[in-house]
């Protein structure tokens, strides 16, 4: 039933997505962007709604497809005490939504030379000692739009289990929502990235990668590189389109 209504709303609002007039929009909701009320068509994404309301993205939007993690947003819905977190490009507006985007989580990203680091829990704690502050509140897990078991990967990181961190954090898109909410002020995604890099060091290099690296260093592709480097902008664009067509990408 609910499904059906949503489907009808979506059809009725097809106009918005394809860029037709307001007059064609049949269903509206009110949302509050940074406290100011806006009437926007129902069923569009938060990202579309923010643009519909007249804002232009300078930061806070990237792939528009749920992959880049640039569009982190926190919101509450009227009548619900919970502070929720979502990706603006992947979440639909709801009536009575209060929202603000948090396009960047202020976080220091330590620099390291991965070749020189020992793959161990000690290395993780050297760069991210704040991992030790986790109180197991699970707030990060509840905030994650990728539905990862974030607390579990932080716990695994604390005990130096690089393999578990890698597996549990693999789909992290570094949106930073976990870190914004964490009472222990942990920077989850940077720690997980270091853990994955360290874990990667323990794995054997795949045959095909080894093979490719060998060919590159033997100069097998040198001629082709030189040719591409010498092309002008238009020729490059044409080449790109041709490649994509061959892969079945562009129409």
């Amino acid at each position, binding site marked *: 039933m609910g499904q059906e209504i949503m489907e009808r709303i979506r059809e009725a609002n097809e106009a918005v997505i394809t860029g037709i007039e307001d007059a064609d929009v049949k269903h509206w909701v009110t949302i509050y962007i940074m406290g100011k009320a806006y009437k926007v068509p129902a069923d569009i994404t938060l990202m579309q709604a923010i643009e519909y309301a007249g804002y232009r993205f300078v930061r806070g939007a990237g792939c528009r497809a749920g992959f880049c993690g640039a569009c982190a947003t926190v919101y509450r819905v009227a009548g619900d005490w919970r502070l929720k977190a979502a990706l603006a490009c992947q979440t639909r507006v709801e009536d009575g939504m209060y929202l603000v985007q948090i396009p960047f989580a202020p976080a220091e990203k330590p620099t390291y030379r991965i070749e020189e680091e020992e793959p161990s*829990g*000690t290395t993780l*704690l*050297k760069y991210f*000692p*704040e991992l*030790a*502050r986790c109180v197991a509140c699970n707030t990060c897990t509840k905030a994650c739009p990728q539905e990862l078991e974030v607390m579990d990967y932080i716990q695994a990181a*604390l*005990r*130096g289990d690089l393999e578990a961190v890698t597996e549990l954090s693999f789909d992290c898109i570094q949106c930073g929502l976990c870190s914004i909410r964490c009472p222990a002020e942990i920077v989850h995604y940077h720690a997980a990235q270091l853990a994955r890099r360290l874990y990667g060091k323990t794995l054997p290099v795949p045959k095909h990668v080894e093979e490719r690296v060998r060919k590159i260093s033997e100069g097998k592709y040198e001629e082709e590189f030189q040719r591409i480097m010498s092309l002008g902008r238009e020729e490059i664009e044409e080449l790109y389109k041709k490649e994509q067509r061959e892969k079945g990408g562009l129409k």
Partner: protein
Amino acid sequence: MAEVIKGDALRIPSREPEFVRRVEELSGEDVFACYQCGKCSAGCPFTTGMDLLPAEVLRLLQLGDERVLESRSPWVCASCLACEVRCPKGVDIAKVMEALRLLVLRKGETGLTWREIPPGVPQIALVGATRKLTP
């Protein structure tokens, strides 16, 4: 154990400063129960790093002397509870030390910076230190 006699006889509620009330509330301990026998100080293995002995911390609290808030002792205390098992009056001094730390930590100040961390310490050292010494 004999019944512990509370410290109410020593208390002058109208003269009791707010911070003393707060320490008692956070620790759940009766600082006026202490009769200054000094057993806690005698047993504390950390006194060389302290500016006030554990019994002195209790005494300054009884007197409402604010200098106790500046003391280094709570930051050197390792919550080892040697004092707690010894006190004949049943005062858990470690809880009083924790309350004094919390008065500072809950304002967002830290008693530990990351620069101090020796590489390779076990997790439990870091977890313990951050829980006791960071906000």
